């Protein structure tokens, strides 16, 4: 039964998703590098934003999914939710890393320094640390109900920390001279409709990519379970 499910996943639905993601990404690339005009003050580097912001959105969304799956796991105790939380945390950390890499690359030519202890950067870094710890916890414990329960508790505790991080870091910086922040209002103000459209396409492409990667990761975990099951069956029958 499980077998069928896995095969179905690799067929119909997911290949549509692959094509859709590919086309949207192609459109996003075209928009970013051909269609959208160069921003006047920042120059070409501003085009990084079309990757940076969707990555940030994606990692945040992924961590939210970890939170929801963790709650559902503790409630229902079904392996399914544990798989979702694991897959989503992994993808979230990867895109969070991309945010942390592209951020300084943008900041160097614009702010003149790689890193500023700006509220947004700082909280992204803390978030990254929390979810890296989450993945480490998973890597350190053997597969089983204990790992799933512990990870779920951390998934909940970690996500609930986000508002505290947000406010503490925000208030922390207000006592110092503030650098030019990539705040949403500052960004949106001078924004051309074509820029907004490009950002929208890019957001769409990244969101589709998330679902595509999730599908692959989930399928992998299920394959792993299936292999374990068959191994056991084989050993016991002999």
């Amino acid at each position: 039964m499980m077998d069928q499910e896995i095969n179905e996943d690799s067929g119909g639905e997911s290949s549509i998703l692959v094509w859709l993601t590919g086309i949207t990404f192609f459109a996003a690339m075209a928009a970013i590098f051909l269609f959208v005009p160069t921003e006047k003050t920042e120059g070409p580097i501003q085009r990084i934003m079309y990757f940076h912001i969707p990555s940030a959105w994606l990692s945040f969304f992924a961590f939210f999914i970890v939170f929801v799956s963790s709650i559902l796991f503790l409630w229902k105790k079904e392996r399914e939710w544990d798989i979702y939380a694991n897959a989503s945390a992994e993808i979230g950390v990867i895109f969070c890393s991309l945010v942390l890499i592209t951020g300084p690359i943008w900041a160097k030519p614009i702010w003149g320094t790689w890193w500023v202890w700006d509220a947004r950067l700082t909280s992204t870094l803390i978030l990254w640390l929390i979810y890296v710890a989450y993945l480490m916890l998973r890597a350190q414990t053997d597969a089983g109900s204990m790992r799933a329960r512990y990870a779920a508790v951390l998934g909940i505790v970690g996500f609930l920390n986000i508002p505290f991080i947000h406010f503490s870091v925000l208030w922390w910086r207000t006592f110092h001279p503030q650098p030019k922040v990539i705040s949403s209002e500052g960004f949106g103000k001078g924004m051309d409709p074509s820029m907004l459209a490009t950002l929208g396409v890019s957001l769409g492409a990244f969101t589709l990519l998330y679902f595509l990667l999730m599908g692959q990761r989930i399928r992998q975990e299920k394959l792993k379970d299936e292999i374990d099951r068959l191994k056991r069956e084989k050993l016991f029958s002999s």
Partner: protein
Amino acid sequence: MDNFGFLFAANAFVWGGIIYYVYTLKQRNRELEKDLALLKEAIGKESR
């Protein structure tokens, strides 16, 4: 205003990161599928 180098670097990281992740996923997938096929074959032989 000439910061194409930075733009290139950022793009390299983003695409490098995504492609590397997708590649490792594919690799892991292939390994798992191979394991599964081997196991099924072994079980099939025994039951016969």
